[in-house]
């Protein structure tokens, strides 16, 4: 009712004066954007510029422009490549396993099961916890003497200090921590799949599995692309959780790229080099997500 009342009036006004008025008001609104530019865009641009300098942490050190020298160093830095490899293993496995686990949980939560309400609330709890607390909690679980995991499994493993087990152990925590976001988003996506499609497919004789594969999954695709991309970005940039769990140890086996960059910048004082590492990771992420961002921009229009 209101819609039909309003529409003719807007159409009658015509686009031209509207645009002029918008431009005027926009000039008035410009000052509102300046703090955002100063506080948010500024530091990032500065950070990117640092990647091309030899900035050090000392107060009175001279900083000079070194072009792409840092990038050259990075490409031949064995430690960086090891950290990058660990980061990719971490980000890809956490993202994929988290997605599969969350999809399963979302499908269950979408059904009329008992305990569903309880499971839904429980699935949100990790989201509500500070990453530091999650790390500390899992350190209690993994504790070699006082931890519950060894007690339950009857093993005697120092989970977070063992060269071969530490990374998988940390990945498990990553999955646990990120499941809520992914599950909530997938569940919302599932609930937006029109019921009629399912019923029609059912009438045509499609079984549960085929209905999932041919109806649910294609409908869910945009949501899946969005959440897995975001998960990938968040995971490759993860710092706090792993810092609290292992500080990158044992022997660098869980030193994700951001832990590497943190050490370079704030332990050894190589600001420029650490910034270069940040830029390099950004380039990797952007390459992976190029398609996704392009789709987002198109949708945002």
């Amino acid at each position, binding site marked *: 009712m209101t819609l039909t009342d309003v529409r003719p009036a807007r159409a009658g006004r015509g686009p031209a004066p509207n645009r002029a008025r918008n431009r005027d008001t926009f000039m008035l*609104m410009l000052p509102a954007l300046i703090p955002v530019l100063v506080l948010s865009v500024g530091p990032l641009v500065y950070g990117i510029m640092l990647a091309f300098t030899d900035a050090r942490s000392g107060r009175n050190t001279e900083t000079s422009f070194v072009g792409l020298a840092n990038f050259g160093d990075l490409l031949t830095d064995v430690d960086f490549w090891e950290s990058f490899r660990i980061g990719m293993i971490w980000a890809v496995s956490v993202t994929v396993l988290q997605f599969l686990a969350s999809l399963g949980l979302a499908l269950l939560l979408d059904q009329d099961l008992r305990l569903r309400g309880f*499971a839904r609330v429980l699935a949100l709890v990790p989201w509500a916890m500070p990453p530091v607390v999650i790390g500390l909690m899992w350190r209690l679980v993994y504790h070699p003497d006082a931890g519950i995991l060894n007690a339950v499994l009857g093993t005697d493993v120092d989970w977070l200090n063992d060269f071969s087990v530490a990374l998988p152990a940390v990945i498990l925590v990553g999955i646990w921590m990120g499941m809520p976001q992914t599950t909530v988003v997938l569940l919302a996506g599932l609930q937006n799949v029109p019921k009629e499609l399912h019923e029609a497919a059912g009438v045509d004789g499609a079984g549960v599995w085929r209905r999932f594969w041919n109806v649910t999954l294609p409908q869910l695709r945009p949501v899946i692309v969005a959440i897995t991309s975001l998960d990938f970005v968040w995971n490759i940039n993860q710092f706090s959780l792993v810092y*609290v769990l292992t500080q990158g140890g044992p022997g660098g086996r869980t030193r994700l790229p*951001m832990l590497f960059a943190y050490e370079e*910048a704030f332990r050894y004082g190589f600001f420029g080099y650490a910034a270069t590492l940040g830029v390099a990771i950004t380039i990797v992420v952007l390459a992976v997500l190029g398609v996704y961002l392009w789709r987002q921009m198109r949708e945002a229009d």
Partner: protein
Amino acid sequence: MRTALKYLALLGYIVFLAFPLVWLLSTALKTPQEMANLDPTWIPRRPTLANFADAFGEQDIVGSAARSLAVALASAVITVVVALPAAYALARFRSALNKVAIGWVLVSQVFPVILIIIPLFMVLRRLELVNTLPGLALVHVTFTLPFALWMLQGYVRAVPRELEEAASVDGAGRLRALASVVAPLLVPGVVATLLFAFISSWNEFLFALVVLKDPEVATLPLTLVKFTGPEGVVRLGPLAAASLLATIPSLAFFAVIQRRLRSGLMAGAVKG
């Protein structure tokens, strides 16, 4: 049969999600003697609240919590004050800049924080704000701003433009229309953004680690991480207790908004 399998799977998820939480609670309720026992049990033999008292006594938990609170409040308020006018501008005036801004919010999520923390650290050092709480609050504003902007412009967009225009037609000036028509409708969105910014700051660890070197100004996450010393096992009880206490604010926040989360608030945020 199929239903039985579903319940089995659901039970598996519940166990996976719940067992670390149960263990945290169990550890928080155990006596130091029991912690030293080499055969850990799920249920404390003689549950005690002494760990909570110890947590307050041993480390500067109360002081850190107070500092975390101050930083979180300040950065939440500043974030919203800075973001609201910009969000209004972005939501109401379609232009090329609008697209750029939305792209910016997305892209800013992609950049690793290391690219922001180093320049901010250099600036803070120049301003003599390293090791100070205002310095950390400023960093948190920078860090929260893009997403807060994104949230707020969504809320502004949800207020029908027609309402504003109607108020103008009725003779109200632009500012009066804003104050009397738009502002009341934005209150829930502003509150949600304030809470989001507060929780982001309260939980934040990396920036605090970089900016606050001095234990005397440490925020709660920093103090928690430094909690376990060489004494080891006996101190795990108080650590667990303190961790539980540190979770209360964000748990309360999620209790308030969980209904909206479940109804797919985040799906909207992701899809834009």
